């Protein structure tokens, strides 16, 4: 199958998946107790006031009617209007995507070279002190939950030593990059382990494979064998893991956003669900579904390209 027809089939399937996800999310949020009017009324739940809010928000229309009118807007990229604030949902998405993409991109830019390097080094020196040290450190970092690591780093480097800003409150992420250091460390801590372990295992497999032995018999240089022949094959499985990490990052890592006060998509999601602001939740579901489908598609295409013999199933 050609790359193009394979990609086209995957895109079509992706659209169906996105539609399925947003439908599911819509009805799951409906199933939560309380609606936007109840959430907004809060500790002043006067039934007369709640029904007035409900009418003002259009919540007195039937569930299916609201879902259909929301779906009708989608092809025009009209995500509707936030129930609670009356601002367009697109505003919330754009506001949240910025910080999330900045964090995700910087994390990936650091993550991929560091973890590939660590994996390759460990594989080339298998069983050495370096291998064992890299393994121990990365596994140790992997075992600490994000929130725990974040709290410790903030307490030590943000508050006690005051080397770095403890939060990003009120800061512009791009003009004050110092606020990003601690969040990036927290975001890197776990994926470095999973990816470098995969690269190490893939590299060991590749170095022990028939074609590497064959290349050696042909008398090719060792570094050419390692980096031109073994490494691309070793990376194929790691690419899938990078994709999963990318997807995780683009979903807005809620814990990191909350602790460091970075108003990305995760924060928007928490607020929207707490406020039962269904159009905003729906808009986020579209964004998350589209990024998941797109990231996995790209990953499969890259893996296909890196190791054409690898089985790629739609």
């Amino acid at each position: 199958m050609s790359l193009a027809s394979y990609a086209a089939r995957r895109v079509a399937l992706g659209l169906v998946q996105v539609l399925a996800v947003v439908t599911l999310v819509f009805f799951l949020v409906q199933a939560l107790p309380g609606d936007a009017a109840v959430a907004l009324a809060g500790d002043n739940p006067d039934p007369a006031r709640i029904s007035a809010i409900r009418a003002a928000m259009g919540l007195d229309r039937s569930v299916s009617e609201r879902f259909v009118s929301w779906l009708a807007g989608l092809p025009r990229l009209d995500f509707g209007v936030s129930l609670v604030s009356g601002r367009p949902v697109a505003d919330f998405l754009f506001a949240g995507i910025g910080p999330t993409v900045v964090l995700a991109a910087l994390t990936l830019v650091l993550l991929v070279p560091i973890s590939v390097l660590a994996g390759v080094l460990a594989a080339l020196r298998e069983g050495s002190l370096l291998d064992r040290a890299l393994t121990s450190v990365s596994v140790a970092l992997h075992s600490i939950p994000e929130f725990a690591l974040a709290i410790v780093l903030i307490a030590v480097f943000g508050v006690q030593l005051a080397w770095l800003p403890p939060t990003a409150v009120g800061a512009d992420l791009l003009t004050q990059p110092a606020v990003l250091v601690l969040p990036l460390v927290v975001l890197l801590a776990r994926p470095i382990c999973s990816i470098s372990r995969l690269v190490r295992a893939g590299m060991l497999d590749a170095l022990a494979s028939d074609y590497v032995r064959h290349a050696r018999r042909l008398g090719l240089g060792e570094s050419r064998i390692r980096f031109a022949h073994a490494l691309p094959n070793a990376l194929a499985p790691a690419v899938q893991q990078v994709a999963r990490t990318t997807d995780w990052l683009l979903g807005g890592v809620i814990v990191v956003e909350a602790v460091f006060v970075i108003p990305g998509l995760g924060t928007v999601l928490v607020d929207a669900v707490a406020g039962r602001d269904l159009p905003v939740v729906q808009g986020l579901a579209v964004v998350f579904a589209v990024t998941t489908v797109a990231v996995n598609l790209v990953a499969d295409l890259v893996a296909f390209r890196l190791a054409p013999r690898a089985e790629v199933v739609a």
Partner: protein
Amino acid sequence: MSLNRRGFLGLTTLTVATLAGCGSAPVSAPRTGGRLRAAFAGGGAKEVLDPHLANLFVEAARSKALYDKLADLGTDVSPQPRLAEKWEPSADLSRWRITLRQAKFHDGRPVRAQDVLASYARILDPNRAFRAKSSLALIDLPNSRAVDDRTVEFALKRPFAEFPNALAAFGAYIVPEGTEDFTKPVGSGAFSFVSFEPGKSVLVKRNPDYWEGAPLLDELEFLIANEESARTNALLGGQVEYAHDLTPTTARSHASGDRMAIHRAPNSAVQAFAMKLDRAPFDNRDLREALFLLVDRPQLVESVLAGSGQVGNDLFGKGYQHYADAIPQRERDLDKAKFLIRKAGAEGLTVKLDTSTAAAGMVEAATVFADQAKGSGLTIEVVQGNKDSYWADTLKNGSLSSFRSGAMPIETHIAQRLLKGAGTNVTKWNRPEFDALYEKAVSTSDEGARNEAYVEMQRVLHAEGGYLMWGFADWIVGAKPNVGGISDAPANTLDWARFDKVWLG
């Protein structure tokens, strides 16, 4: 996420402090200049600059900086004139003549009687659901009029002595006539608008023409940090100068340090359990009294509030105007409680106590109370519900639930929660003779008679009511030690989160 962000606060018995509440660090004399950054919990989805839609603490604080009400609540939670210079009721209390101050909106236009009427008409619009609507609903708007530019005459649908409480209602701000677009809000407040990034920050600057005198700060920036730990860290890291709504635990661990000054507004939020009188088992008066006697209030204050609070006496509004402080404080009496439980035939009964994390400390209080009830013959089973719909759920369902409330006048508490047909009558208190007492209180212009009626109502509630009000929590704010002028008035009163009197030393 700390979702203790909607509530309203409580009261205080202290007078307005003009200096930082607890300073071990010296604060300089008032001085002008500088930008103060204040961190509040927010919630991007809800944040709006329309002051009539204000709901969260941060929205209330911003509205207060940008706008004025005709009246606001003083430190004893009694109404104080603001944009209204004075109010004069007719003899039968059904018409009120309000004289406005000479004040200007930020665009230079004067605040006129027409702006007041238009603002109230917007709040009372039948197609909308603003928070202040129920408080202002007794105004007969078609028969109210602007006498001249600075005089409004309100006609009321019934005589009402406490009309100034309505003028001070949450969200009853005065906006220029015809305003519907609040992207660049124009008010008459101490600060004027500069910029807004939803979910992140609002920047305002000194209004040099403010009718009460220009603020000391040049600029004021409201920042959003939903997590309490993030607000604390930002303050410790020098990223903000003021952190709103900290926990008693944080206060305790930083009270003696020199990096943060802790400001407490005593008796700010009432902490309670609500029993429903219209259904078993708490339709039995003896069983209600048993619960009153079962609870160990000092222990709850010490454990749940980490000592940052005071015990309550099952009455709302300790320290407020009209509070019945002559009624003796209830103490724990396990033997009498056991006797009353037996008498009520409730021995061996298990009662569900509904609670949730909708407000800080409620689950902890419920758990401690369930423990205190052990050995009494009555078993209390704590059931944790959904926090986002908690208040609406417990208004209808169950028989015993956690409750909390912030400051409001005692009259408002009664009108909203204890009259037949009141919108949020969670204890289902329904007594015609009590309603008659309330009618008497609000329809007499005799101060003494009114106070007597309030005290009588509280006596009945203390003896037979459904609210077990065990404590009053301090409201806790952290600030840099060089910040002066932070008041310890209860949240939701005029001086709470008020920044025009604050300075950077």
